[in-house]
């Protein structure tokens, strides 16, 4: 037998239109998982900058005039940051809901409706995200 032909990428993500519900659930779960890990480390880094700000006098901190408070308030004033916050919420909510779905799968409950539970977690994520928009966008300057 001579060498056989390797179809390479044609077997992988190039086929995304043909992916099934379970496959998408897996991809989204991985993606949101990495996003949350990325956020976690960014979050820790940002929080740790408060240590240098803590050197300020109590009055300054209470008046929220220290570098940490002003920087964060400045960031919160940005429309882009508010958008990212909504995105973070969506990512976290989906990861939680699909995590529950996977817990059910691990326990062997309702495996035949695993695709429906994936769609349900997508819809719920969408609904919660949309419902959160007014809260996240109050008092933001563009």
């Amino acid at each position, binding site marked *: 037998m001579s060498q056989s*032909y390797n179809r390479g990428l044609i077997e992988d993500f190039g086929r995304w239109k043909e992916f099934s519900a379970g496959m998408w659930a897996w991809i989204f779960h991985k993606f949101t998982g990495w996003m949350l890990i990325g956020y976690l480390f960014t979050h820790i880094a940002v929080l740790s900058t408060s240590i240098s700000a803590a050197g300020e006098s109590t009055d300054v901190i209470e008046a929220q005039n220290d570098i940490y408070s002003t920087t964060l308030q400045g960031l919160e004033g940005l429309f882009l940051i508010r958008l990212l916050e909504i995105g973070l919420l969506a990512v976290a909510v989906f990861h939680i809901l699909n995590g529950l779905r996977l817990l059910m*799968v691990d326990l062997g409950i309702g495996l035949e409706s695993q695709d429906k539970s994936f769609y349900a977690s997508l819809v719920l994520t969408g609904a919660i995200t949309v419902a959160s928009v007014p809260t996240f966008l109050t008092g933001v300057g563009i």
Partner: protein
Amino acid sequence: MSTQQAEPESQEAPEDPAMKGAESPAAEEQKGGGMVDEHAEKAAELEGETVHIKVFRYDPEVEGKQEPRFDDFHVPFEKGMTVLDSVMYARDEYDSSLTFRHSCRQAVCGSDAFFVNGKQRLGCKTQISDLEQPVRIEPLPHQEVVKDLVVDMDHFYDQMHTVEPYFQDEDTPPVDDLEEQRQSQENREKIKMSSRCIWCGACMSSCNIAAGDNEYLGPAAINKAYKFAMDDREGEEIKEHRLRILEQEHGVWRCQTQFSCTEVCPKDIPLTEHIQELKREAVKKNLKFW
């Protein structure tokens, strides 16, 4: 599996507008032109409804077929026609070099698993009228293509044998004492679905964990192990031995519950469910409360 070596040309092949006709330009060069006209004529002659199929062609031993391509065939439609019927017609009437495996034609032998319109299906079990045309017929993904629709199944069979797919007894009694080993009805029901496997390899081909991890046992092999591990007639020790094979690094824990295998299995075996159950068995075996 070395799926990393991407061949960009191959990805374009299905979209290539030049391939959309009732013939393939490459075939023309290869066969000196006569072949293609014949195709077109035959297609024109056909009265009534025809089915348009696009079949993956590749043969490393034939010049002009070393570059994979899709050939178009227009096959007369008959009620009840399966995907296998259509490729058989194409082979018998248009191009005798078209190669694929088939045998029983009734979804028992497991020879004719193809990648049809982006999904692993048994050619003989798939009604062509259920599919969107043109029907794209390709060899199973994640397996090396030997020729046309024929893939190398060696690795799949190796994985199947890894789980020792045969009944084992702790110690076989002397010949005179041998007697029928009866199974309870409940136990038979439990392993019924798992015993339906026909070794077609569709599940393994659909699993992208198996594609990335060559040592992963894969759904079919794990299902086969399930059949024996759950069989009450095998002793406790054998069951433990089976679980030891399954709970290895490349065993049940590699499954990430994408349900791809369950979705493509032509015999409707709940593969993911079986894998999950074995995971729980493996945990139970190792859990100690003291």
